[in-house]
C-alpha cells in the first residue's frame, strides 16, 4: 500500500468522518523519523569546511530525550555550536540538502521540542560566553547557549543580576527567549523574552542578522517567543539590574480561589516585587510575596497585610488539624503534607543563604529547591495560561484533573505583566490573545518519585487532559518548551497559524529548522 506524503505544516483531508475526534486536527504530533536522505554529502561538505560532526552512537545518545523524558529520538549527527559563522554555514548547507536541524540549549523542553528525530542536532551550549556588560546602561550581551545559572554567577561578580529567568536555571538564554520564561517577578517585569533588547540571529537560510525594535523589526518580532521557527539566537542583549537580596513572606490559604484573588489584587496594586502561589494539592496553598527593599516591605506591612485573606503558619496549622482530625481516612495525606513541609521549607529559607532575615540569593536557592524536590527524569509540567477572568476556573478544572491522575501534586501560579508594545511578539506564543494587563499561568505538576514508575503513555494522557481544558476554555499554554502541534491550531486557530506558516515557508523554504514543534 502507498503511504501518502504530507508536507510539513499541512493538515491532510480526514478520510474517517467530518466529526472524528472533534477538535483534534488530523496531524501526527509525535514526530516521525527522518531517514537520512543526502546525509553523507551534507556531512562531507561540513567536514571539508572544518566543522566537526559527531556521529558515534555514544555522542548522539546523550541527546536521546529532553527534560520531559516522554519523547525519544536520535539525531544522525551532533554539532557543538562555536560561533555564528559556523552555525550559519550549517544552516546554509542544511537548507541546500534539506537536512532537519534541531537546536538544543539546556534541553529543558517537555514535549520533545529539543529532541532530534534524525538529522542534525545543534548543541548551543558551546556558545556560552558573557560578551560584554554595560554597567551604566544596565545591559549585557550574552551568547545564546549561556545557561542562566552561569549568567547569574558572572553578573554577581559586578553586583548585578538578570531581571527575570525561569526558576529552573539550567535552561539556556536563547531557548528561553524563544519561548518566554517566567519568574516570580514576571508580574512586575514581564517574561524573560520581554527583557531582550536586541538579538543576533542566524536565519534558516544561513544569514547572520542583527535585529531589535529598530533594526530588522519583523525578524525580531518573529524570533522572540517564536519557538525556534524563524532563526537561531546566537547572541542577545538583555536588560539587567543591580543585585538585591530578597525579603520573603508566606501566607497560607485553604481555598485556591481566595489565594488567586489575593495574588491578582497584589499584582494589580504593584505593591510587591515578587509574587506567586505554590500549593501541595489543593490542601496547603502558599502565597509567596517578596521585596527588593526594606521600604517596599514596610509599605506592604502597613497597607496590605491586613487585607490578605491568608493566615500565618501557626494559625494555618491549627486549621489544617481541624480539617484532618475528623477525617482519619485522609491521614496519609496529612502525613505527606507534614513530611513535605519539613523537607521543602528549610530549602526555601536555607540558613547559609540568610542574613538578618534576608535571602541571598534567590537564583541559587530556588533553582536548587526546584531540582531537589521536583527534579525527576520526567519533568511533567503541563500548564495553562489564561486571562485574569478565566484563570480561576482553569486552575480549578486543572486541579480536578491532577486529582484524577495522581495522589500528590503541586500547583505553581504566577502572573505575567504584558507589554502592549510587544503584542506582535506574543501572537504565536502562549500568551492568551484575550489577556490584557496581565496573563496568569499555572503549572500542574505531579510529585513523582523513583519508587513508582508511570508509563510515558500515562503521563502524556495527563498532559493531554490539561491541554484539553485550555482548548475548551479558549486559554493557552505557557511552557519551557514549544507547543504540541495539535494544540496550537486548536488554541490559536487556523488563521493565526497559517499566517505564521506562510512566513515560515518564506524564511525556511526547506522547512528544516526545529521541525515538528509547531509546523
Amino acid at each position, binding site marked *: *500500500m502507498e*503511504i501518502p506524503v504530507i508536507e510539513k505544516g499541512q493538515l491532510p483531508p480526514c478520510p*474517517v468522518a467530518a466529526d472524528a475526534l472533534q477538535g483534534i486536527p488530523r496531524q501526527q504530533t509525535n514526530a516521525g523519523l527522518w531517514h537520512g536522505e543526502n546525509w553523507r554529502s551534507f556531512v562531507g561538505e561540513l567536514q571539508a569546511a572544518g566543522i566537526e560532526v559527531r556521529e558515534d552512537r555514544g555522542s548522539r545518545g546523550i541527546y*536521546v*530525550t529532553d527534560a520531559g523524558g516522554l519523547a*525519544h529520538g536520535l539525531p544522525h549527527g551532533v554539532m557543538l555550536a562555536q560561533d555564528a559563522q559556523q552555525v550559519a554555514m550549517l544552516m546554509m548547507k542544511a537548507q541546500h540538502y534539506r537536512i532537519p536541524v534541531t537546536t538544543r540549549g539546556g534541553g529543558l523542553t517537555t514535549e520533545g521540542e529539543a529532541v532530534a528525530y534524525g538529522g542534525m542536532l545543534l548543541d548551543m551550549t558551546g556558545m556560552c560566553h558573557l560578551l560584554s556588560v554595560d554597567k551604566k546602561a544596565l545591559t549585557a550581551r550574552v551568547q545564546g547557549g549561556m545557561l542562566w545559572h552561569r549568567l547569574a554567577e558572572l553578573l554577581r561578580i559586578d553586583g548585578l543580576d538578570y531581571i527575570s529567568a525561569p526558576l529552573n536555571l539550567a535552561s539556556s538564554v536563547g531557548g528561553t527567549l524563544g519561548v518566554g520564561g517566567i519568574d516570580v517577578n514576571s508580574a512586575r517585569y514581564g517574561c524573560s523574552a520581554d527583557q531582550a533588547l536586541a538579538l543576533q540571529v542566524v536565519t534558516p537560510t544561513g544569514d547572520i542578522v542583527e535585529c531589535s525594535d529598530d533594526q530588522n523589526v519583523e525578524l525580531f518580532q518573529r524570533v522572540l517567543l517564536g519557538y525556534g521557527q524563524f532563526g537561531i539566537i546566537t547572541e542577545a542583549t538583555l536588560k539587567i539590574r543591580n543585585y538585591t537580596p530578597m525579603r520573603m513572606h508566606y501566607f497560607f490559604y485553604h481555598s485556591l480561589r481566595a489565594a488567586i484573588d489575593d495574588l491578582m489584587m497584589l499584582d494589580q496594586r504593584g505593591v510587591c516585587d515578587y509574587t506567586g502561589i505554590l500549593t501541595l494539592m489543593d490542601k496547603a496553598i502558599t502565597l509567596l510575596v517578596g521585596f527588593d527593599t526594606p521600604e517596599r516591605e514596610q509599605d506592604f506591612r502597613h497597607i496590605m497585610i491586613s487585607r490578605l485573606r491568608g493566615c500565618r503558619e501557626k494559625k494555618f496549622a491549627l486549621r489544617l488539624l481541624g480539617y484532618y482530625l475528623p477525617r482519619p481516612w485522609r491521614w496519609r495525606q496529612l502525613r505527606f503534607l507534614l513530611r513535605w513541609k519539613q523537607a521543602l521549607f528549610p530549602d526555601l529559607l536555607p540558613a547559609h543563604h540568610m542574613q538578618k532575615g534576608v535571602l541571598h540569593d534567590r537564583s541559587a536557592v530556588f533553582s536548587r529547591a526546584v531540582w531537589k524536590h521536583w527534579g525527576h527524569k520526567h519533568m511533567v509540567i503541563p500548564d495553562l495560561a489564561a486571562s485574569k477572568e478565566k484563570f480561576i476556573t482553569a486552575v480549578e478544572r486543572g486541579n480536578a484533573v491532577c486529582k484524577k491522575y495522581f495522589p500528590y501534586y503541586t500547583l505553581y501560579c504566577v502572573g505575567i505583566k504584558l507589554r502592549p508594545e510587544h503584542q506582535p511578539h506574543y501572537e504565536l506564543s502562549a500568551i492568551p490573545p484575550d489577556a490584557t494587563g496581565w496573563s496568569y499561568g499555572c503549572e500542574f505538576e505531579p510529585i513523582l518519585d523513583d519508587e*513508582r514508575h508511570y508509563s510515558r*503513555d500515562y503521563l502524556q494522557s495527563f498532559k493531554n487532559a490539561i491541554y484539553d481544558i485550555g482548548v475548551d476554555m479558549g486559554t493557552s499554554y505557557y511552557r519551557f518548551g514549544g507547543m504540541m502541534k495539535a494544540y496550537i491550531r486548536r488554541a490559536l486557530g487556523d488563521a493565526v497559524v497559517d499566517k505564521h506558516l506562510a512566513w515560515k515557508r518564506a524564511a525556511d523554504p526547506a522547512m528544516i529548522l526545529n521541525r515538528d514543534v509547531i509546523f
Partner: protein
Amino acid sequence: MRNVDVIIVGASLAAAAAAKRLVDAGFETLILERLELPRHKICSGILSPRGYRFLLENFGPLPRAALHDPTWCRGVTFHFPSMVSMPMDFFGGTTPHLHRKYSDYWAIQRSGAEVHDQTSVVALSDKGTHVAVSARRQGGETVEYGARYVIGADGPSSVVRKAIYPQYDKQIPWFFVGQKFHDIIHCPLDHEYFHFWFHPRLGHYTWSHARDGRQIVGVGFKKGDSFHDRHRIVEAYLREKHDVQLQPAAPDHEGCAENFGPSLINRYVFGRGNMLLTGQSTGFLNMIGEGMSCALHSGAIAGEAVVESLCHNQPVQSVYRQMIASEVRRTSDQWNPLMIAFAKPHEADFPAALLALPREDRIKVLRDIWRFVVLYKEFNWGRQIMASSLARLFTGRYPPQRWL
C-alpha cells in the same frame, strides 16, 4: 546469526506501537511475522476514540486504504431480549473503521522497524543476557536470531507466551469468535453503529455491523460448539426480531480463538526474564471485545519499559509491571461492576443512556443484563471479579499478585 536489540514477534498494532518507541530511541528493532505482509486479520475493525487518538498522534492521519466502508463508526448500540435498544455515541465523535490488513501494515511501516515477514518463530530460549530465537522462513529455511529482549505481540494464541508458560493455555477458558458476511436485502440496523446483543440464547458474544456493502453477523461462544449452528440461530433471530433480511452467507466466513477472561479477572500475563508480552497475548481486551486501543497503549508501554531498561539499566520486568499498572486499571475498570455503576470507565456513556430510558425499560435492561451475565457462571469468574473490584475500591489498583 543476526543480533539486534529487540525482536518483536507479530506484526500487529501492539507491535507497531512498541516498535515506534524503540526505533525512536535508536534501538535496532526487528519484527518477525509468520504471514506475508500485508496480512489478513480477523477483526471488527471498530476502534475506540482513545485508540484513534493514539494512532493519529504517533503514526499520523490514516490513509483511505486503511479503512473499510463506512469509514467511520459513531458508537455502539446494545440490544436486549426485551427488545429495548440503547444507542450510545463515542465520546469525541466518530472513530475509524479499520481495515486491519492495511492499517496494521501502515502502522508497522510508519514505526520505522525492520520487518522479516513469512518468518515463523519456532523456539525461544532466554539465555539470561539475551534471548536466542529460532525461526523458519517460508520454504523451510531455518534462521537464528539473538536479541537483548523479545516482545510477544502475537495475539491471543501467542507463540512467545507458549514458550514462557507452556501450561497457560490449558488453564483458561477459550472462546471461538466467527463472522459471516451477507449481502443485504433489507437491514434496519443503523450502519453507523456497532450492534451488540446481550442475549444468552444467542451466545457469549453476538454482534453485527455493516462493512463494504455487506452485513457482518458475528457470534462468539465457548470453544467446542458449532459455528454454523450458532450463526444460524443469530441470523434467524435478526430476521425475526429486527427485520434484518440477508442473502445467504458468502463463502468467505472466518473465525479464531479468543481469550476473553484475563482482563475481567485481572489475570494478565506479562512475561518473564528478557521476554515481555503485550496486547492481547497479555490478555488486554476492552469491554465489547475491542482490543486495538489497549493493544496500542500496552504495546507502547512495553516499548517504553525496554527503552527504560536499556538506557538506565533497570530490571525490565519490574519496570514494565509498574508502568503497565495504569493500562491494567483502565482496561479492568471497563469490566468492574462498581466502576460501571459509579464511574464512567467506557468511551460511551452507558449510565446516561440507561437513565434516558423509561423506568420500566430500565428494569428490563438490568434484568436482561443479569440473565446474560449468568451465562458466564460456569467459568467461576464472579468471585474473582468482586475481589478485584473491592481491591480497586480500597487500594486504588488491581492486585499485581494475580499477574503472571
